[in-house]
């Protein structure tokens, strides 16, 4: 990149004639305007992040007009024997609307955590394979295949889980509900494995070759080098990839909407139907009347999702940046 002082050397030197003076003045103005134009465009991503933040909050904050913060946790109700009960339910269309986010959050975790575990096993293995084990020629052929995996639209994966996956796991495991958190998490894995695989591969590849050489030079074999030298050195990069994968699992909509069964059960059983935060917005936003409590509550879920994924992404990026600094000698 050229800095300003270098650039100054090459700028047209004004001559004595008044004509060239005005020309260069005009050229300077033009360059400045162009710079301002590109700077404004450069801000686009930042502006959109801020706009997304503002407009989510603008709508979501109105939820607190009628719904208290505690109502998003539970609703207190007297049961038949006059005993105070805490009801953890998401049922906004009922006569006494219930807005507890607890079943939606457990539903999200119940799909996202198994998906992240499965994806970590396969994704890290694929990353190690591509970076350390595969022959360079094989790798050149296999890496695009992993990229193709990432390119499959999520609605297609949802459809596959619905049409093939659900029946397959139903026959295999005989779960409580045919569509359940486990089926959804298998679908989510197909999205997250490529993310973890390619980021793990990046992290492993960025380990300096000297470290490998030193390890081999001390008589270590391939597995010892991978497990005791390369993986520890790339630990922060690999964990960042897992964080990003988890963030993606929390934010994914179509797969969980189609395969998780969409019943907001408060459960810890992965073989039962659940409803996630994303699926709730997707399923209910189309039918809700604008300006109702339910409508604002859905925006509030959006805020929760935005904040969760924002901090997951931010922490992953900080880890990756630290790793880059450490690895550049």
């Amino acid at each position, binding site marked *: *990149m*050229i800095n300003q002082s270098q650039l100054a050397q*090459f700028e*047209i030197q004004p001559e004595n004639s008044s004509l060239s003076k005005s020309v260069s003045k005009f050229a300077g103005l033009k360059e400045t305007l*162009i*710079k301002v134009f590109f*700077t404004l465009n*450069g*801000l*686009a*991503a*930042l502006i*959109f*992040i801020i706009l*997304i933040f503002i*407009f*989510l909050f*603008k709508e979501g904050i109105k939820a607190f007009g009628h719904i208290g913060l505690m109502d998003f946790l539970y609703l207190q109700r007297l049961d038949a024997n006059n005993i105070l009960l805490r009801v953890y339910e998401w049922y906004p269309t009922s006569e006494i609307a219930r807005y507890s986010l607890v079943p939606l959050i457990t539903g999200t975790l119940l799909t996202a955590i198994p998906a992240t575990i499965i994806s970590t*096993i*396969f994704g890290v*293995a694929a990353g*190690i*394979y591509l970076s350390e*084990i595969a022959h360079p020629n094989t790798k050149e052929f*296999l890496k*695009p295949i992993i*990229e*193709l*995996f990432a*390119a*499959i*639209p*999520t*609605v*297609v994966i*949802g*459809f596959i889980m619905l*049409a*093939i996956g659900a029946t397959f796991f139903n026959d295999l495991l005989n779960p409580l509900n045919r569509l359940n958190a486990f089926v959804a998490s298998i679908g989510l894995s197909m999205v997250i494995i490529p993310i973890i695989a390619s980021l793990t591969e990046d992290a492993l590849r960025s380990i300096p070759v000297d470290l490998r050489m030193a390890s081999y030079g001390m008589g270590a*074999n*391939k*597995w010892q080098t*991978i*497990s005791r030298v390369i993986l520890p050195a790339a630990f922060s990069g690999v964990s960042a990839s897992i964080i990003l994968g988890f963030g993606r699992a*929390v934010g*994914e*909509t*179509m797969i969980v*909407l189609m395969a998780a069964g969409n019943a907001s059960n408060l459960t810890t059983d992965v073989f039962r139907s659940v409803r996630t935060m994303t699926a709730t917005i*997707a399923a209910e*936003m189309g039918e809700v009347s*604008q300006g109702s409590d339910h409508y604002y509550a859905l*925006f509030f879920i*959006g805020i929760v*999702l*935005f904040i969760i994924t*924002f901090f*997951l992404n*931010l922490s992953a*990026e900080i880890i990756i940046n630290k790793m880059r600094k450490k690895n550049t000698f």
Partner: protein
Amino acid sequence: MDIQKKQKDILGSLFINSIRVLFAILVIVLFLLIGKIVLEGIGMISFEFIFDEPKNNMTEGGIGPAIFGTIAVTIIMVAMAVPLGVFSAIYLSEYAKDSFFYRIIRTSINNLAGIPSIVFGLFGLGFFILFVGKNLDNVLETGLLFGQPALLWASSTLAVLVLPIVIVSTLEALTSVPKSHRDASYGMGASKWQTIKNVVLPQARPGILTGTILAVSRGVGETAPILFLGCAFFLPNLPIVDLCIGDYCIPMINPTEQFMYLAYHIFILATQSSNPTKTLPLQYGATLVLIGLTILLNITAIIFRYKFRKSLGRN
């Protein structure tokens, strides 16, 4: 000692082989799934299926309007996202200095890419429809024209969603143009803008193209953000308006109408159809078209990038 070493070797090769097996499972699953979709869907693919509209309460007929809607949304999305993304990348690579501010912009690009797609849908509803659209209606006194779900707002929202893809891909191409080329241009008396226009951008063209293809592939496959931005189950008419100048009329995409979308169509057929088993062939056919499109786009992008990187002499 010797036995211990041997045990270690066995353990090591066991681990390495299990990694190979895990990777093989991945590739096999991918091929099985794509193979299944191709086998079930290929019988449906015909001229009528691609161009016809759904018939008989969406249990027969084709996916023509959904394909048309997808193309219309994508065209408008590309027209918005690509210039903005390319200009943004030019700023980052040519003008910005490595400062705190620069890092904030880089972070916001990464964060924008990580926001859940359904949140983009909420943003499109809150910002584009209820804020921009409603205000446009007030200013232009068009009644209720812009302040409702429409093709334009779906495209705009998808444009924001794919913006990071365009920026990152263009930025990679721009930063890979050697500094010496820029210096040579400056040395010949070219200004900064002339250098960008005549030296840097032409070399970055394959990168911009790769970014555009990847953005299209992402946009075509997205469903969640447009669920409540104008996507319809079924529409009897295509979102077309005749633009007339004198006697000459050209059919144009009507950005204020609702539309059908291929990805959404698959979702509807699979989950809300009156008879899901009867429409299963339709679902496989539509899925094959969508997945064929995205894989084709991605293979093109991969080839482009491969050639581009090779031409730069690195891999």
